[in-house]
């Protein structure tokens, strides 16, 4: 259309604005990584590069479908240069650089599926992946907006960019980014419309003289007034968009979320890794009260939230949990896992209460429980005895629950002599990825060489980690628990915090063939009074649990004493006559252990679930969306059918409550109104009938667009009309009305209705069926106001005859 005439200036500026808009919208991806600048700066550059390429391509009048190809090529060349620049000859790729580029993109994809956002800088960067996305989106936006000239449609890819973090991070995009992208998009629409207008006609008005200057730019700049209107409209719409959503309630209907009560078994909740965010919460969070516990248990020391049972080389994960409906946390639980009934045990009651700051879908509970009563949809996993809610919105904030904890009195000798566990358990809990570094394996072998039983091996590992060789430092430690981090932690640096200690011990135990897992929870409560304890968010902790035959999962504490106090008594070799279970150490010694801990936003461990990893398994709630759409469709269908139903009800009410002739007359009137025919009110029935016969038409199979109308076209209907009129007249004026039977009246109305319908167009017929006017307006459609409207003089154009 305007392509041939669009000047270079317009082409270039539209392309640049499109690229900038895309770039600004890409700001909403900032939350994906720790240093967004590393992605945004090259994204800007490549965006402008693509915009210029597209402008040149359009200026050269390349076919529209060809223009995106050089753009894509330029974008990918730059991507190659940026990602694998050292291997390529400047911008020109070669085989090795391409290979490297593909490899790095693949690795960043792995990172993205592994780590929760924001991805730390220490792991393989996800910048290549994001940059690839930026290139594709920029080309898409440029193609739609500039090359194809469908600017409003370009809003869709922009919306996709914008909504990606919403679905992945579950957190909104800052208002400033939204406002800026909105401004960019509106600028695009404005420029496109201005271009269209400038091709529409000769400009007149105030700024006519300014066109000489703007003509160089290739398109006519718009006058100040129009720009002002555009700014006012755009700004007020954007302001509304920022303010109004605060007032819109979001329902988040749990009906759609799949796992309601009785929704059947077999649904599995996939949970990724609560560990990943542990360090973030510890480092950043402000120390806030999250949990109060009251219990009689004298040895109360820690609460577990989740256990991480699988290690895939990049992180410890909770693995897949199979939850069934009968596994509700509302009473007695199965027997303790793997605990010999001969082990002496004592039961204590626990009352737990979480503050509003604890936003967790995992329920903190004592290590061994025999009974849990939590209100809401809480389920347990029988293999790990972890308690979790089934969706995001059921969390612990402000919740109260009770449990019966079981305190086991482990006998040290029996622990030491316990045989290795059965092969099934061993296979599951000693499973490790293939790429465990040899140095770690050798180290493990060195430590455990002299020990026979699983318990002794575990104790040796714990002693090794608690030795002076290791230093606890939350700040200096590298975050993460992937293989590389663990290797450097164990071999070189030996500085870390609970995450590294616990996962390192668990990995080493597995190397040594001992079933192990990592537990995440709270440790070292502050006593606040008589048998009440408090946990703050900084008490979050990770430790190792080792499976000992006959004793179940036994806690080991590899983290050094300056953070955790003493190790559990049964694991200490030097105090053979100590209590079977260590007294809880005084929290005073632990509190200063992480004095530099930063603010803690939410100790929401399962937030990791929503991390970048979510994209792999559970990225977008398709089921929810589909259910929502389906529900919406049903709602719309019901709404659409409502007028029909009401109309039918009105018809039946008429026939029921009025004499047949009057009912027929009323029904005929309503039908005429529905069809938009002019039913003259305030005339006698005969005059009305005579006038209405003018709207009759012959019923033909192939309806002409404008059928011939009049009484003569459909004599049967005309006769029926006069029968009805006579019936009404007799009913109204005759002393003794002979009466019309209802069947006759029905028949006549049907004939007249068909004749009416034959005389109007399809649209009016559809409207009469689906949106009958007679429901809300008793007045006929072509009433006086409508006529007046047709002839009304607009007083804003004045004619002077010249």
């Amino acid at each position, binding site marked *: 259309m305007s392509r041939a005439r669009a000047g270079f200036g317009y082409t270039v500026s539209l392309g640049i604005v499109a690229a900038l808009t895309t770039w600004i919208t890409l700001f909403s991806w900032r939350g994906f990584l720790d240093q967004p600048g590393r992605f945004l700066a090259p994204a800007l550059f490549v965006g402008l590069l693509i915009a210029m390429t597209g402008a040149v391509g359009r200026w050269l009048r390349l076919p529209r479908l060809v223009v995106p190809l050089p753009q894509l090529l330029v974008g990918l060349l730059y991507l190659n240069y940026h990602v694998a620049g050292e291997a390529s000859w400047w911008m020109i790729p070669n085989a090795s650089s391409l290979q490297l580029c593909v490899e790095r993109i693949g690795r960043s994809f792995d990172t993205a599926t592994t780590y929760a956002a924001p991805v730390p800088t220490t792991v393989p960067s996800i910048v290549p992946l994001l940059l690839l996305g930026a290139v594709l989106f920029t080309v898409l936006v440029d193609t739609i907006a500039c090359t194809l000239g469908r600017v*409003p449609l370009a*809003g869709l890819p922009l*919306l996709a960019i*914008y*909504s990606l973090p*919403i679905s992945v991070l579950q957190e*909104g*995009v800052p208002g400033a980014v*939204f406002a800026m992208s*909105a401004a960019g998009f509106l600028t695009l*629409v*404005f420029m496109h*419309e*201005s271009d269209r*207008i400038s091709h*529409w*006609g*000769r*400009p*007149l*008005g*105030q*700024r006519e003289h300014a066109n000489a200057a703007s003509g160089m730019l290739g398109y006519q700049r*718009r006058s*100040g*007034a*129009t720009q002002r*209107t*555009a700014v*006012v*409209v*755009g700004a*007020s*719409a*954007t302001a*509304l*968009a*920022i303010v*109004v*959503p*605060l007032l*819109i*309630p*979001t*329902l*988040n*209907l749990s009906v759609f979320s799949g796992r309601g009560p009785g929704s059947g078994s077999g649904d599995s909740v996939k949970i990724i890794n609560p560990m990943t965010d542990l360090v973030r919460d510890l480092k950043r969070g402000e120390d806030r009260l999250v949990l109060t516990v009251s219990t009689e248990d004298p040895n109360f020391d820690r609460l577990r939230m989740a256990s991480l049972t699988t290690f895939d080389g990049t992180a410890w994960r909770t693995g897949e949990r199979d939850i069934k409906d009968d596994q509700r946390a509302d009473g007695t639980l199965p027997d303790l896992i793997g605990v010999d009934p001969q082990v002496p045990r004592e039961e204590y009651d626990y009352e737990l209460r979480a503050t509003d700051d604890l936003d967790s879908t995992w329920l903190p509970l004592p290590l061994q429980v025999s009974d849990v009563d939590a209100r809401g949809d809480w389920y347990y996993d029988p293999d790990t005895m972890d308690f979790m809610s089934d969706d995001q919105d059921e969390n612990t904030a402000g919740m109260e629950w009770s449990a019966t904890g079981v305190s086991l009195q482990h006998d040290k000798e029996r622990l030491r002599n316990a045989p290795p566990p059965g092969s099934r358990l061993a296979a599951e809990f000693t499973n490790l990825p293939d790429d465990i570094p040899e140095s770690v394996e050798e180290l493990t072998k060195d430590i455990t060489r002299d020990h026979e039983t699983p318990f002794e091996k575990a104790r040796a590992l714990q002693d090794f980690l608690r030795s002076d060789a290791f230093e606890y430092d939350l700040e200096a430690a590298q975050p993460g628990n992937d293989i590389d981090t663990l290797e450097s932690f164990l071999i070189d640096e030996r500085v870390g915090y609970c995450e590294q200690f616990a996962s390192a011990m668990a990995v080493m135990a597995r190397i040594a063939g001992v079933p192990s897992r990592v537990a995440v929870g709270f440790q070292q409560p502050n006593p606040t009074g008589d048998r009440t304890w408090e946990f703050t968010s900084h008490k979050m902790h990770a430790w190792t649990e080792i499976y000992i035959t006959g004793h179940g999962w036994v806690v080991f504490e590899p983290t050094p004493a300056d953070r955790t106090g003493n190790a559990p008594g049964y694991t200490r070799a030097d105090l053979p006559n100590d209590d079977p279970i260590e007294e809880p150490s005084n929290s005073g010694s632990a509190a200063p252990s992480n004095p530099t801990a930063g603010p803690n936003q939410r100790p929401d461990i399962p937030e990791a679930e929503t991390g970048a990893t979510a994209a792999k398994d559970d990225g977008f*709630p398709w089921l929810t*969306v589909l259910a*929502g759409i389906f*529900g*919406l469709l049903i709602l719309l269908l019901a709404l659409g059918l409502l007028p029909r139903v009401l109309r039918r009800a009105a018809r039946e009410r008429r026939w029921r409550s009025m004499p047949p002739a009057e009912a027929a007359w009323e029904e005929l009137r309503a039908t005429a109104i529905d069809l938009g025919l002019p039913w003259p009110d305030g005339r006698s029935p005969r005059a009305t009938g005579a006038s209405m016969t003018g709207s009759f038409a012959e019923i033909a199979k192939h309806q002409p667009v404008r059928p011939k109308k009049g009484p003569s076209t459909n004599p049967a209907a005309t006769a029926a009309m006069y029968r009805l009129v006579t019936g009404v007249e007799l009913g109204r004026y005759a002393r003794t009305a002979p009466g019309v039977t209802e069947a006759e009246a029905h028949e006549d109305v049907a004939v007249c209705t068909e004749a009416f319908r034959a005389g109007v167009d399809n649209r009016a017929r559809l409207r009469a069926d689906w949106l009958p006017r007679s429901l809300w307006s008793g007045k006929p459609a072509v009433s006086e106001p409508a006529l007046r409207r047709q002839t009304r003089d607009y*007083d*804003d*154009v*004045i*004619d*002077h*005859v*010249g």
Partner: protein
Amino acid sequence: MREGLAGLTVRGRAFLAAGVTAIACAIVLGQPSLSRVGVLIAALPLVTAFVVGRSRYRLALIRHVTPTLVSAGQQASVRLDLSNEGRTPTGMMLLEDHVPYVLGTRPRFVLEGVKHGWHRHITYQLRSDVRGRFDIGPMTVRVGDPFGLVELGRAFHTTTQLTVTPRTVPLPVIPLSGAWTGSGDNRPRAFAIGSAEDVTVREYRQGDDLRRVHWRSSARVGELMVRREEQPWQSRATLFLDNRSHSHRGQGVASSLEAAVSVAASIAVHLSQRGFTVRFVTANGEDPNTVWHDRSSSLNTGPLLEALAVVDSVQRPTIDSGWLREGNQSGLFVAVLGRMEQIDHPVLRSMLHHASSALALTLDVDAWAARGAGTGTDAAAWLSAQGWSAVSLGPQDRLAAAWQELGRSSTPRGHAATGHVIAGGLR
């Protein structure tokens, strides 16, 4: 606001629908960030509709067309005087003057941000190759917005007429008889005797001798009147055009009727220049604007050409002959004829009877229908036999040559027609 909403464009409606959908999804799915997008998209058309619906403007338009009578192929210029009488500055307006498509593209103007008292002249040119009377206007105004979301339609009502007359060709001077016919209601009287009412006066025209001013009439009428002393005798001519549809072939500009109209126009102009007062008669009878009247021949061409500009084919089997019954002489009679039927012969004889001298140009209409030479020569032969001077004209023939031929064959009435002239023809 309501008006603005009614004027939402497809884009505006789509934005509104998309926005509402997004808001609904955001509410159902619990995503407040999505509702932000929805509100933005839905608010845009609503705010625009509000702003556009609120704008008040009063545009005034005066249109001049000069000249209002142009010959086909000549240019006329239209001048528009636009002014804004509204109080607030206008938004964006798209003006389009509705000009018939045969006159060229419709002139379109974009008007934005005009203040109160704004005034502007715009001129554009019109040119038509087709005769006719055309309505220039009305101008439509579409009030738009910067994002193309709302469009309100308005229209001025007035139109101005432009008459495009048929093309004419200059004709050679040939001897024409039948001049100086003095019949009719304008027979001069001797004014020296009798009362002032008997004096025939006319309006003063530049160049009249002051001594001829008739002061008494001037005082009564209020403007200068002069006594008529010039020769009252007029050279009168009757121009007949057969515009019955079955007499002609072809469609539109290429039809034989158009050729006939063009021939008639050329003859009308030529006769007027020769000093004849021409009246124009079609198959429907006399044209009331071009009856013989007391005016000079040069003033006569305008109405004649105007009448010819709007001549259209008529559906009637016979030629109206009512104007022949007045008993007066028609003076010189020139007929432009198409296909002749047996039924027309009495009327033609009657015409010849009334004329002092009768010329006829018969169009070989079948040639226009691309069927080769047809009855045109036969008709000319019949007319010549009756006493007309007649030539036949084909689509390729030059009118000037045919007219010359007609002059050569023109003989006083009563002389025998010469068949060889016809045969010598124009081919």
